[in-house]
């Protein structure tokens, strides 16, 4: 292991461990007696919910599946990365929301035994779990041929490949049939895409189904699907470029895919800006209620104004659009644009969750500090966990693109 890799992994491990300690402290801690979830005096949904929304709405898997189904050849070289990123972000997202539960040990109740089919949240959980399962299955078929190939070599990677390919079971599992695998992957990818759209739009509907004016908007489901595409393309551009820089390997076909994703990012950012304008005006300015205009004004002129105008609009939308347009066919510009749009999307998730609840606060509830230090430590730990998992998977799995079909 190189020194640079050792430092990176150690740093990530330290951050993940800190996140774990923070989660423990939030639930069972005695050293720092805090009540970050004391809902009657603050925001019931806080940073962890915003982080969950950010993580599970990184639609790289959906982009990959759509690319496969629509036969977009340019996207083929980055399908493996896209599937892995989605598996990692949804898994870490589900861990994050489980930590946000007051009774983490009962998280299983939401799936088994006590289901409430009337609840949007129940369906959101079901769709995300299904999407995760379909992505794992799609990824398995997509990787299988390369796993079998890698299992013939020696070493730890070969051992892992043997395990993951289920080669030890013999029969179908030990034979290579790339074409059949690809058609399976494509079919399951279709299911993954459908469940992804259902999950994203359900998450939007989950916020809509409330009396909170900033959230109570029928366009939420569509907007969430759109921002999932924005986040997905930004993450894919960012990860592909950074991997190519760190490994020193530049695959021309992967870079072609990155430029195509750059176009997708540009269009989705344009669509997002129209959506933001539309939503803000529709919610706040027909002045259907005092609460509606209060919450919109609080977002755009109140205490969230800096976040909204600087992080969401300038950093998240205007700067990336300018970077992509000005730096046409320039990887550095795309890299910067993808990073900035991710910062903007995170700011949007944060503002959406917090600013929405301000209308609850004006009915007499005091405002607690928006982010507790333990929540922040956990959030950093969760993002580090996602990076670490992706790094490990990227290292262990056969990521090279060897087929054209």
């Amino acid at each position, binding site marked *: 292991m190189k020194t640079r890799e050792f430092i990176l992994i150690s740093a990530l491990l330290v951050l993940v461990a800190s996140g774990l300690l923070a989660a423990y402290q939030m639930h069972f801690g005695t050293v720092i007696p805090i*009540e970050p*979830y*004391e*809902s*009657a*005096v603050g925001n*019931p*949904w806080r940073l962890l919910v915003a982080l969950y929304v950010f993580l599970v709405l990184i639609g790289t898997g959906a982009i990959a599946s759509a690319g496969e189904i629509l036969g977009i050849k340019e996207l083929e070289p980055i399908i493996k990365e896209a599937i892995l990123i989605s598996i990692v972000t949804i898994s870490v997202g589900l861990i994050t929301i489980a930590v*946000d*539960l*007051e*009774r983490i040990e*009962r*998280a299983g*109740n*939401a799936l088994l035994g*006590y*289901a*409430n089919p*009337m*609840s*949007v*949240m*129940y369906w959101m*959980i079901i769709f995300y779990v299904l999407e995760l399962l379909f992505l794992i299955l799609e990824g398995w078929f997509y990787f299988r041929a390369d796993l079998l190939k890698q299992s013939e070599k020696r070493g730890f990677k070969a051992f892992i490949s043997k395990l993951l390919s289920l080669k030890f079971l013999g029969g179908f599992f030990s034979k290579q049939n790339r074409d059949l695998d690809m058609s399976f992957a494509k079919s399951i990818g279709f299911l993954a895409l459908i469940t992804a759209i259902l999950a994203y739009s359900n998450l939007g509907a*989950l916020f809509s*189904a*409330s*009396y*909170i004016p900033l959230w109570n908007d029928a366009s939420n489901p569509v907007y969430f699907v759109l921002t999932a595409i924005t986040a997905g393309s930004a993450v894919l551009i960012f990860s592909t470029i950074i991997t190519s820089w760190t490994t020193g390997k530049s695959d021309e076909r992967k870079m072609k895919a990155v430029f195509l994703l750059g176009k997708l990012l540009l269009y989705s950012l344009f669509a997002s800006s129209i959506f933001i304008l539309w939503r803000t005006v529709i919610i706040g300015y027909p002045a259907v209620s005092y609460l509606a205009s209060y919450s919109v004004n609080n977002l755009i002129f109140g205490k969230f104004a800096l976040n909204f105008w600087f992080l969401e609009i300038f950093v998240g939308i205007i700067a990336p659009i300018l970077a992509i347009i000005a730096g046409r066919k320039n990887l550095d510009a795309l890299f910067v644009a993808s990073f900035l749009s991710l910062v903007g999307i995170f700011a949007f998730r944060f503002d959406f969750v917090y600013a929405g*609840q301000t209308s*609850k606060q*004006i*009915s*007499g*509830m*005091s405002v607690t500090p928006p982010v507790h230090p333990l929540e922040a430590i956990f959030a950093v730990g969760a993002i580090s966990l996602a990076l670490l998992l992706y790094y490990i998977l990227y290292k262990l799995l056969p990521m090279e693109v060897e087929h054209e079909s």
Partner: protein
Amino acid sequence: MNRRDFLKLILSLPLASVSIASLKSSKGYAMIIDVEKCIGCGKCVIACKIENGVPLELPISRTWIESYLDGKKIVMNTKDNPFIKIKAKNGFFVPKLCNHCSNAPCVNVCPVSARFHVDGIVLVDKDVCIGCKYCIIACPYGATFVHPEEKVTDKCTFCYHRIRRGLKPACVLVCPTGARKFGEFKEGSEVYEILKSKRFSVLKPEAGTNPRVFYLNLDTVVE
């Protein structure tokens, strides 16, 4: 009452008033709160907290009192004891609690069916609740909170453990002015007769939740 107040009253009544005819189908328990009788003493809050094991020192409660003084709302909690210290010359008090809505958003959104109706009362199954706090988000009345010790959501149950044994809810029992009335909503009952004979209103009727807590003499729309 000046002309301005009179106009405000007239404009607010169509929003807040509910006719008894629309309630005839709703069986089960109901509570009536007479705003004119409430003196903001806070005994109901203390009694409720003691009866239901809600920490006295924390600003969370199954029932609470809001004072509206000169148009400004103040949420009173046990830290502000004695409650009466707030001058109520130009204001009034509105005791609040879970409205036990017939069309309860908290029941609809709970992903694990931890909230359900019994005799018109919305109850919480504390052995099932996962603490996702969606009910807190969904409730338009802010009547639900996380119990800091039990780590599940908590709210008023009309003291279901008491009324099952024929007792009154703790808040009703201790109210020194009789501002709270409680009983079954059926023809001939005290609650039914009051609602039949007096003008009453519910909180946030625009939410369409069909509350089972009714207010008398609440002449203005409160938040």
